[in-house]
């Protein structure tokens, strides 16, 4: 199959430029919306799927680019790596966006592109002369919806592209039209306005909220939401949705008004608005909406962490806000079982206040969950140093001690078995491996000793 289409392409191009162009123009389809012959496609090998990529989809292709002279200027196969990009978003040449959206999975085609849809009158200083038509051979290997979050919990596919480079930020007010479906059944259909970060107040799930800052005005897209970003393990009775269901929302962003960014606000605005944001966060925390609470507390930090304030009093107020926000975040992340973020936030608190009881306690809890028993015990001991009356910390220390003992027992069992195995094998092998460990240990110890003794300058 590979040989087939390469030969065909080369044959077409063995003729000189104008001849090749007219051959492709005769055989091919004009893909341009206004039919100006700017992008003409010849299918070399049809795809094996009816579906075509949607705007925003992450598509993966192999391609070869040539001038009309036949000279190759770019080839992904030579790099031995397929190329991925988001289709229809203006990341690539116009001809590519138009071309790839017309292809099917597995399709191989040739695109003849006029300069207006390729490198224009400027060309590409490196490789392409001005006003050059070019030919791309493309193979569409795969495509999938665009993942908007790191965990793949929100995947977007765009039906209608929006416009403009401005997007809703946290705090922006948006006007949307929603259609929510579960297993194809429509359960929610309405026009609604909400504040980004606070969609929960209008019964709009987290996934839709988090997608807002990637949407353009006028965009209509499908959002595929995993339960974490939908209705979670509680489900939603009034929509008759059970626990842990995937849902799909079709969202049209009709209009929005951005909120001021941190750098657009002066210190007074921020200090005035911070208490309100903190309360909002606290509200969400009380009702168990930890993701939403996190968003509010993080807003405070993004506003204030770099601010010094204009006087001692204001500076202290700012520090307090930031410290409390980090402490609250630590607690939220504990509930969300996101332990590394707990530790990060506690560390930030301790940078500001090195004897913060709550920070030590919460960090200890996180470390306990991560089975870092030694470190956890240290943290709880610090809690007692700061506040000897903290009974909870004493209990935690006992738990740590028990866990440490348990693990030592386990380790002993494991190593006992290991030694057993070694002993049954070659006795010399056993001796060498023990010595190796001891060797490393001692090298480490010697280094420490030498450094401490001040050997060297």
């Amino acid at each position, binding site marked *: 199959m590979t040989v087939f289409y390469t030969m065909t392409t080369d044959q077409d191009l063995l003729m000189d430029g104008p001849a090749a162009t007219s051959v492709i123009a005769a055989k091919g389809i004009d893909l341009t919306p206004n039919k100006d012959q700017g992008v003409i496609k010849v299918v070399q090998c049809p795809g094996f799927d009816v579906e075509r990529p949607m705007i925003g989809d992450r598509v993966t292709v192999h*391609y070869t*680019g040539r001038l009309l002279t036949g000279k190759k*200027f*770019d080839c*992904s196969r*030579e*790099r031995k790596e397929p*190329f991925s990009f988001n289709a229809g978003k*203006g*990341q*690539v*040449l*116009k001809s*590519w966006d138009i071309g790839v959206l017309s292809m099917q999975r597995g399709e191989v085609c040739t695109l003849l592109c006029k300069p207006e849809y390729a*490198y*224009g*009158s*400027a*060309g*590409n*200083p*490196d*490789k*392409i002369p001005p006003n050059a038509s070019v030919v*791309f051979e493309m193979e569409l290997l795969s495509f999938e919806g665009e993942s*908007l*979050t*790191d965990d793949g919990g929100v995947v977007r596919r765009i039906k209608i592209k929006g*416009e*403009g*480079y*401005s997007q809703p930020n946290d705090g922006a007010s948006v006007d949307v039209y929603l259609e929510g479906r579960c297993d194809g059944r429509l359960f929610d259909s309405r026009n609604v306005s909400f504040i980004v970060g606070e969609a929960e107040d209008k019964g709009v799930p987290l996934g839709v909220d988090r997608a807002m*800052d990637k949407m353009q005005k006028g965009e209509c897209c499908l959002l595929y939401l995993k339960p974490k970003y939908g209705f979670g393990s509680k489900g939603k009775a009034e929509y008759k949705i059970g626990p842990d269901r995937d849902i799909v929302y079709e969202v049209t962003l009709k209009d929005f008004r951005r909120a001021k960014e941190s750098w657009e606000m002066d210190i007074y605005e921020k200090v005035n608005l911070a208490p309100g944001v903190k309360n909002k966060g606290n509200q969400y925390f009380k009702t168990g909406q930890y993701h939403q609470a996190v968003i509010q507390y*993080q807003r405070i*930090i*993004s506003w204030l*962490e770099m601010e010094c304030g204009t006087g001692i009093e204001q500076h202290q107020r700012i520090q307090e806000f930031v410290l409390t926000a980090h402490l609250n975040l630590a607690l939220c992340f504990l509930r969300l079982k996101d332990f590394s*973020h707990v530790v*990060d936030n506690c560390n*930030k608190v301790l940078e500001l206040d090195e004897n913060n009881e709550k920070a030590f306690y919460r960090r200890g809890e996180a470390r306990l969950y991560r089975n870092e028993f030694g470190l956890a015990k240290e943290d709880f001991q610090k809690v007692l140093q700061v506040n000897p009356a903290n009974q909870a910390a004493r209990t935690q220390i006992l738990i740590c001690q028990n866990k440490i003992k348990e693990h030592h027992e386990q380790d002993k069992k494991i190593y006992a078995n290991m030694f057993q195995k070694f002993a049954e094998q070659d006795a010399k092998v056993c001796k060498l491996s023990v010595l190796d460990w001891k060797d490393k240990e*001692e*090298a*480490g110890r*010697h*280094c420490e000793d*030498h*450094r401490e*003794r001040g*050997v*060297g*300058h």
Partner: protein
Amino acid sequence: MALERFSNVVQLCQALPESRYTAEHHDSFTAAGRACIQEGHCNDVLSILLDEKNQDTVSCMGWTLLPPLIQLLLKKEDQNLPRWAAIFTHLLETCRPKELLIGLLEQLEHSDPHTAAESLHLLLKPLQKVLLRLGSRKASSLGMTLSSVLDQLIKLPLPLTKEQEETDEFSVCRCCIELADFVRPFFQEARQSLSSRSDRDCGLEDELRAELLKFCMKTLSHLLLEVQLRGPDELTESALRTFATHILDGLASVGEHLHSLVFQPVLKRKQVPGFLEEEVRYPKASLASVAHLVFVHHLAADRFPSIFSPVFCLRCNMEHVFLLLSSTEDPKLQKGLELYEESLVRLEDGSLPADLLQIRTFLTVPQNMVKVMTLCPRHDLRTKGLKVFQLSIEKFDTEAKYRLFQYILRTSNHSGVEGYIIKNIRTQIHVALQVRPRSFSFSAALTSN
């Protein structure tokens, strides 16, 4: 006498197992051994160290002899240099890698700018040898070494002109070549581990890649951003250009795509505020340096796909340009202007829509340009700034020009710049009055203001 003492302590240790060496043994060995070296007893020291019976002692304590030995080797005056070199080699092969590393790095860190180049020249190969002996546990040691090596390299005065690069008076170019040789096997290891991923090694190999990435990023921001690279038409063979290419190749070895790095400002997902993990891993200055090397110097061109839209490239590069033009250092300003110019020339005149002005950098970069044009002490940079500024104006469509002019008139606070803008407005009105039909009434919009 030092030689006697050294001989004695070595004989004492011969009889004991390693675990019975005391602090006195260590101290005697070190003091006596160093004195012997300083007194020049190379033959005797060599024969003691090579003696079969002393190998355990040497492997345990030999590394402490490095400081005076390296000082000697650096001076290069001694006629017994080959003997000292032989002692050095023997120690490198016999002593424990981690201890050798400490000894070598301590010597490296103590060099001043005058001796930095010579220290690097002497110590890079030994460091490489020692690190390779560490096998799969080398990652953190490699990281520490690369950091120290770079710190020394950065101390050296960089060549400012083509002639200075050719004469290489301060050996910067030579050091870069030697550094590239130094890292080569480690990049190779990273490349191989990437192509044959096995779950078992994932942790260790990830660490290695992370350290190499850190090294590339630091080199890009601290060294390559400061130096001026010469193109092939100016300087056919350029050690610095080759070095820069090696660094870009190195990024590929650790699995980073150049286009992902350059376009990261626009393509990355939203970051949680306060947790700048991505910013630490991919410092903005380093990314700007990559963009400059790729777009202005066309390095690693075959690895950078040429199918990105020029407008998209501009959008991403604006972030890098903003960073560079916010600096007060001439090399960075120059690179900012060059990157901006290179991104603009690929566009058609009048093709950028007013929508783009919604993006913050499209307003902050012109502000920075105004600063360069009016405040930069260097005349050639001010001139270039003006040239690129005018070029940027040409690329916007009529509506965008109008908005941009408004913005600059409002924010520049400089009569010269205002005058320049007004001149541009006159040109636009002239053009608008001549073209029929008028798609956007420039003069009408202006008079309504």
